[in-house]
């Protein structure tokens, strides 16, 4: 017998006992296992589901929502968790979007700031004026290139320095210091000021200074803008000099004309007076012919004298500008009427002023001359017509942007072809015998009206009387400074 046979023989009785024991234990174990196994099958299913839900979690994490895994009990839990995760995921996504938007907004703002900075940079650098920003303690915070150029100092030297050190002005350390005034409450200072450049040369400038404020409106310092007016100043000087020279020349010319007229007249006095003396002393030895000659001599001299007078007047009319004043035209014309009263009465002239005369700010003396000449002419030419009462009308018309006056008479009239000629100097249409006069009156009128930027013209025809019109623009601007004490008296020009 083998070991096994012996094993089995010995063991047989006990063995069967043991086998049964083994068998029972194994059987029990198997039973327990199978019970457990069966019990867990469902759990294996659950396990599977857990695994699935784990997958679901993963998917959820990767935004593959929704992923509903439903199974009882555990499923609800997992549902909740998933829902929460979904929620969380949504919130995160939203937050992300928000953050993204914020970041985009910030980027936009930054671009905007950059753009504004760039604009500011360019504006500052191309600004014609020199700009300087100074704080309360006189420190220079900012300057633009123009300012640096103005003082001829580099930006690095100016920045951070005290404004009264490197880029001084003529007002530094005086009560006129703009920063002191701004800190004292002034809102805007605009003044001429001299800026001292690096060579200590004075650069005349026009400065504007305003307060510089912070976000809360607190006063931080001052902004200054310096405009270099050295060219303007030298132009101003030049203009002043030219005006001075002009005045000098005018005075010289005036003096010359005055002397010339004086010197020209002395011989005239001699001629005329001695002709008179001849008449007086030799009267009995002179016949009518002789007397006639002497008379002609005197008349010639008279005429020459009047021509000189007219030339004097004409030469002064353009050069001398009297100061403007408010002139009541009614009073002015009334005054002329009085002055010519003798002629008006003598010729029985019907003199009328039509309508309302305005009050105009102008050169009174010049206007007197115009009216006097025109009215005098009107009286003269209307008074020689047979059988008619001489009529002289003076009137006013408002022509919108200009004043218009007219002087009308019912005299012999002027043929159309002469309407331009009559304004030329000494041009006459009649002989001295017919109508006395030098022919300078209308020339003087035209010169004065032209000088005022207006125009003069005549409306007339032979035997139809004549109406002289003159127009003056309403916005009269007094021209150059008048020569003092040189007011031209208004002579009666025949």
């Amino acid at each position: 017998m083998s070991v096994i046979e012996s094993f089995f023989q010995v063991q047989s009785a006990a063995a069967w006992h043991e086998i049964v024991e083994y068998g029972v234990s194994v059987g029990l174990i198997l039973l327990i296992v199978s019970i457990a196994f069966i019990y867990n099958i469902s759990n294996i299913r659950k396990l599977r589901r857990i695994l699935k839900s784990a997958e679901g979690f993963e998917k959820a994490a990767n935004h593959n929502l929704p992923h509903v895994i439903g199974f009882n009990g555990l499923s609800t839990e997992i549902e909740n968790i998933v829902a929460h995760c979904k929620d969380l995921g949504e919130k995160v996504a939203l937050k992300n979007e928000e953050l993204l938007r914020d970041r985009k907004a910030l980027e936009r703002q930054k671009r905007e700031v950059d753009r504004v900075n760039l604009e500011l940079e360019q504006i500052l650098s191309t600004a014609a004026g020199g700009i300087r920003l100074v704080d309360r303690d006189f420190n220079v915070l900012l300057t633009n290139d123009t300012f640096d150029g103005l003082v001829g100092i580099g930006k690095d030297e100016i920045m951070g320095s005290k404004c009264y050190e490197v880029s001084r002005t003529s007002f530094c350390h005086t009560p006129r210091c703009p920063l002191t005034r701004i800190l004292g409450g002034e809102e805007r200072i605009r003044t001429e000021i001299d800026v001292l450049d690096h060579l200590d040369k004075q650069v005349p400038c026009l400065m504007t200074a305003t307060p510089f404020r912070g976000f809360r409106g607190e006063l931080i310092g001052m902004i200054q803008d310096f405009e270099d007016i050295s060219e303007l100043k030298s132009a101003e000087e030049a203009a002043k000099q030219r005006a001075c020279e002009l005045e000098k020349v005018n005075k010289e010319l005036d003096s010359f004309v005055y002397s010339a007229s004086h010197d020209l007249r002395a011989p005239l006095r001699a001629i005329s007076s001695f002709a008179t003396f001849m008449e007086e002393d030799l009267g009995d030895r002179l016949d009518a012919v002789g007397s006639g000659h002497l008379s002609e001599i005197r008349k010639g001299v008279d005429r020459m004298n009047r021509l000189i007078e007219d030339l004097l007047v004409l030469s002064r009319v353009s050069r001398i500008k009297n100061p403007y004043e408010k002139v009541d035209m009614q009073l002015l014309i009334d005054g002329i009427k009085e002055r010519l009263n003798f002629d008006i009465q003598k010729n029985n002239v019907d003199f009328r002023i039509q309508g309302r005369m305005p009050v105009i700010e102008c050169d009174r003396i010049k206007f007197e001359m115009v009216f006097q000449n025109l009215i005098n002419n009107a009286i003269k030419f209307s008074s020689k017509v047979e059988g008619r009462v001489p009529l002289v009308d003076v009137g006013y018309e408002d022509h919108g942007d200009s004043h218009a006056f007219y002087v009308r008479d019912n005299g012999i009239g002027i043929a159309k072809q002469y309407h331009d000629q009559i304004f030329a100097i000494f041009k006459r249409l009649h002989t001295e015998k017919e109508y006395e006069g030098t022919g300078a009156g209308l020339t003087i009128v035209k010169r004065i009206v032209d000088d005022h930027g207006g125009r003069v013209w005549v409306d007339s025809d032979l035997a139809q009387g004549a109406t002289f019109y003159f127009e003056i623009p309403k916005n009269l601007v007094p021209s150059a400074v008048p020569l003092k004490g040189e007011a031209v008296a208004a002579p009666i020009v025949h």
Partner: protein
Amino acid sequence: MAQGRALKILLVEDNDVDVKIASRAFAGSQYESRLHAVSDGEEALSFLLRTGRYANLDPETVFVPDLILLDINLPKMDGFAVLKLIKTDKRTNRIPVIMLTTSNNERDIDESYSLGAASYIQKSVSFEEFINQLNGFNFYWRFVSTLPGWHTT
């Protein structure tokens, strides 16, 4: 100061034609007059103050004028300067001065009056007109000089 007394005139005029004219104008007047003519301001003052070549001459020759006719346009010292001197010197400022002008220039007229001239006469081209103006003043003076208190030393 009687009506009959001759009007004593000092004429300050550089142009001798004008002197002739003035002389003749006064000569032809119904009123008697004595005229002395000088040709510039210096001589005029000399005459008035009896200095220089007028010193130590008898008062008949170097009279105290009742009237001074003063031309504006004089050589060396101009008429206004002479007028000023006459009017600021106590010895001479009582004598009325008439300025002789060649034109009716306002400036001259204003200046004359402001310096104390009594009047002005335009040296007209026409002799008749000149006479008229002179007669006007002549008459005025004749009248005024008869008023009490009028000095003519």
